[in-house]
């Protein structure tokens, strides 16, 4: 599809698409991260930074392009995590500056804005290194300007710079010794290209399901002692001249300012000293300190990855935040193929994989995939989403896979699952007549009851599975318009001894998924 202009609405949709595509591939980007510190968090940091952008846009009641662009720039700076986050925020800021006061932009405006973005990105970094996201943004901006002279189609421009970017990305390995040694391409650059790819997917109407990359193996790096142990970042309100004074106390400095707000990112051993200095320049806030030594060891030692099968954006998000490396799209009535599962397993950067099928129909395919895969795959036979969540929560990163398998089996025993769905046709199951359109409650693969209303069915289902010793009910609903307050009131009235929690699951097929522990 050809696109000849970008306005506020399109930018909003574009940025959302780029974030969701990057988020899906976060683990793959993390796995590439060896520079400047091999600690495997570039993808995570970029996603976090962009998450703040999405949050910021959510509350912005306008489609005015300049406002949206500057909001994106501002929230990305405030939310920036890690050096890649700060650099990304400067790219977004450059884009906003390039957009200026224009209500819509064409392909040439976009290419020129990318050029400003590249300049902004370079100037944030104290010692810019080639072979990083900086090189990438510079080269695609230049290629973009040349291309935009020939074609006004933004879709074509994006595909062209994506192609150029892929070539540059391959060359990063030869530009930066650290990348060559580890035999990887640049992580930040890869992340940025995924963002562009996300926008193209949106334009082309392609599905956002993750196709795992070909077998991903770990970068070739060794355990090493960090020269500087902490990654410190903070915001100073009131000044922009702090760089000179803190330079002495750390390295990998990335500093970016907007108005009177300055974001500082530095790798250092002297966190207290730097904060002390910073306080003299203005009000310091959003102080974040990360122990890179530990992150580095965690990254090197990462041997176990988790792959789950799930459906629904809310459910998938919960699994990701619980530490899942790859979520394979699938569930009731949409079983993933053996190949889908194999490619996900091969796509994680660990030799041992824990696989949660989360549906009894998927266990056979999971078992098949485990046989084919070259990795050591441990299947926890979770039959429902609540079982999968309980199993994942039980994992302790510090212990062995065997002990974790035991912990997970134990956790599954302590959770009861239930689902509510709507009958698609009249039928008879055992004694009960089911009328099309009525709600059916299912627990343990059998029908608990049916009802004309969703709420009544939910209460009926809960009544059959909640016992005195239970302490928490979690309800995953699939409709964003769900009246959670009303639902909560009704349930708490009847089950006053338990905590009741609600989460948006967005799952297909089931109106509610219920977990009782």
């Amino acid at each position: 599809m050809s696109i000849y202009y970008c306005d506020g609405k399109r930018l909003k949709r574009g940025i959302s698409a780029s974030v969701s595509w990057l988020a899906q591939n976060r683990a793959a980007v993390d796995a590439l991260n060896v520079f400047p510190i091999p600690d495997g968090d570039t993808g995570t940091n970029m996603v976090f930074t962009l998450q703040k952008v999405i949050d910021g846009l959510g509350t912005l009641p306008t489609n005015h392009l300049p406002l949206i662009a500057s909001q994106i720039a501002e929230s990305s700076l405030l939310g920036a995590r890690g050096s890649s986050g700060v650099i990304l925020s400067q790219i977004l800021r450059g884009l906003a500056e390039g957009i200026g006061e224009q209500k819509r932009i064409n392909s040439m405006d976009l290419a020129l804005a990318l050029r400003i973005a590249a300049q902004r990105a370079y100037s944030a970094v104290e010692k810019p290194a080639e072979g990083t996201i900086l090189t990438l943004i510079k080269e695609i901006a230049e290629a973009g300007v040349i291309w935009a002279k020939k074609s006004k189609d933004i879709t074509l421009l994006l595909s062209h710079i994506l192609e150029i970017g892929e070539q540059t990305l391959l060359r990063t390995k030869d530009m930066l010794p650290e990348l060559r040694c580890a035999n990887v391409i640049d992580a930040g650059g890869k992340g940025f290209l995924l963002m562009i790819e996300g926008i193209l997917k949106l334009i082309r109407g392609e599905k956002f399901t993750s196709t795992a990359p070909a077998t991903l193996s770990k970068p070739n790096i060794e355990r090493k002692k960090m020269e500087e142990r902490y990654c410190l970042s903070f915001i100073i309100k009131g000044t922009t001249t702090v760089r000179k004074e803190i330079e002495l106390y750390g390295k990998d400095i990335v500093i970016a300012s907007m108005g009177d707000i300055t974001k500082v990112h530095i790798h250092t051993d002297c966190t207290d000293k730097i904060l002390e200095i910073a306080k003299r320049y203005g009000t310091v806030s959003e102080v974040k300190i990360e122990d890179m030594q530990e992150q580095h060891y965690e990254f090197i030692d990462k041997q176990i990855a988790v792959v789950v099968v799930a459906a629904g954006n809310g459910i998938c998000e919960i699994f990701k935040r619980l530490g899942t490396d790859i979520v394979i799209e699938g569930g009731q009535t949409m079983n993933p193929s053996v190949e889908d599962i194999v490619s996900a397993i091969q796509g994680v950067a660990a030799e041992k994989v824990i696989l949660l099928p989360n549906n009894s129909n998927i266990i056979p395919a999971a078992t098949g995939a485990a046989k084919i895969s070259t990795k050591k795959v441990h299947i926890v036979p979770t039959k429902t989403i609540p079982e999968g969540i309980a199993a994942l929560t039980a994992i302790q990163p510090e212990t062995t896979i065997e002990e974790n398998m035991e912990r997970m089996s134990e956790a599954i025993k302590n959770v009861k699952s239930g689902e509510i769905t709507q009958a698609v046709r009249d039928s008879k199951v055992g004694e009960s007549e089911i009328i099309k359109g009525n709600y059916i409650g299912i627990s343990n693969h059998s029908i608990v009851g049916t009802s004309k209303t969703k709420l009544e069915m939910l209460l009926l289902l809960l009544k059959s599975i909640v016992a005195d010793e239970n302490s928490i009910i979690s309800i995953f609903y699939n409709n964003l318009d769900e009246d959670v307050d009303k639902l909560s009131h009704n349930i708490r009235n009847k089950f006053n001894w338990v905590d009741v929690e609600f989460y948006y699951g967005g799952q297909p097929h089931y109106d509610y998924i219920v977990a009782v522990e």
Partner: protein
Amino acid sequence: MVKIITDSTADLPETIATQYNIGVVPLYISFGNKMYKEGVDISKPEFYHKFREYESLSGGLPTTSQPSSKLSGTCESANRAKKELNKDITVIDSGMVSAGLGLIVLCAARAAKNGKNKEQIIEMIEEAKGKIKVYFTVENLKYLEKGGRIGKAQALVGNILHILPILSFKDGIIIPIEKVRGSKKVLPKYKELINREMANFVKFNPKENSILSPQIEVLLVHADCIEKANELEAMLRTSFNCKEAITTSLIGGVVGSHTGPGTWGIAFTWYY
């Protein structure tokens, strides 16, 4: 007689410090550019009031010079002080803060009061360091995460699905040892953990054909969440054989700045 000196991160109640003649060196907390001596310029309840006010107004958190990354910053200062003074001083790195340190100090001070000599007390402290177990729970992991004291991944897990971690220390680093969903499950988990730990020390006495179970001594601390502390205390009283009275204390500002309010936990040791 031996005098025991510690710093304000030991989180001992003032009454205990006075009773056992424990010297408490105050550490500093700063809210923005304003510095306070813990327990001197700012009381513990005042600290939490100010913490909430400061966080809601400025979005910032107080900073402290200690505990340092290795938790042993005060030891370095103490060693420097020792060099300047010509006295018989032994500096011991407990590797712990808050309840863990407090319980060691309490045991040492009690021994000192009972007239034990320096060598006996040092030996006792070294033994206690290996024996004392610490479990604690924070309501919101964001404070520990901001200070780099817990891995990002762990913090993330804690912020969804109402997952509460039960944390401990290993080599001076905070590690999660269990996770539970929902606050109602925390106490049963504590009970299970202590039981599991104590099971290692149940002895059979063949002479008297009896079973010897250890008794526990607990120091319970909380960061401005007295209800949680009371529930925990009640559980400990009913479920375990406590040798001494359970001491409950507010977590001071230095530790509280890092954990945030809504943190509670215990340090315990055992005797036959």
